[in-house]
């Protein structure tokens, strides 16, 4: 599974992208965020406040309880500030 980070999540994790295989217990997007937060201090800092973390599954916005369901690309980022 390809995992992307943007803006300050990217800066805190320290990489823009990583390839990981989460265990079967990781079912939803929120599960994945929690699992990532447990990996090391950098990930923990990125996911410290789940309320300001948004996610996309295969390039579509999703809610935290959305099942990963074989997605190939998961992205985490703060609320958007374009426009």
């Amino acid at each position, binding site marked *: 599974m390809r995992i*992307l980070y*943007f*803006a*300050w999540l*990217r*800066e805190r994790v320290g990489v823009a992208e990583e390839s990981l295989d989460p265990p079967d217990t990781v079912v939803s997007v929120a599960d994945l965020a929690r699992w990532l937060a447990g990996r090391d201090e950098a990930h923990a800092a990125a996911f410290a406040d789940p309320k300001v973390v948004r996610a*996309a599954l295969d*390039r*579509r*916005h*999703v*809610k935290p309880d959305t099942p990963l369901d074989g997605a190939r690309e998961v*992205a985490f*980022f*703060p*609320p*958007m*500030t*374009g*426009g």
Partner: protein
Amino acid sequence: MSAPIPPDGGIFQVRVQAEPFDAAVESARLSTGRTDVGAVVTFTGLCRADAGAAPLTALVLEHYPGMAEEEMARLLAEARSRWPLQGAVIVHRHGRIVPGEPIVLVATASAHRGAAFAAAEFLMDWLKTNAPFWKKEERAAGDRGAPSAGGWVAAKSADDDAAARWTAPDDAR
């Protein structure tokens, strides 16, 4: 006098680019050579300077390549499903943008002004909250007064309110 082009023959386009755009050229394309367009609305969003001890020198826009274009296309499709548009263009820049430069353009064309205005405002409101772009501030020496962690601009609740005026385009958020 050219014949009216059927509504489906219009220009519908989204673009993400580092280069500045020419708002005039982008919006002129929507009506040039046509006689069925009655209203063109163009919105240009620009980078503003600010005052203070450490004035803004630039905004650096990060985006999610691929998803940005896809999300903009989804928003455009949603606007087309809501209003009878004869053309629409969205251009969003990424990279370093200095005060006075344009950041985003939305142009809409319709037979009547109500649809063109509403669609342009809808697209801007939803772009702000849904298009995967993030602004980081670059300030003069000292970086004092940066509003949030590491200079990243915080999302405004006013933008969420503006987007919420329209019912959600999908059930994802």
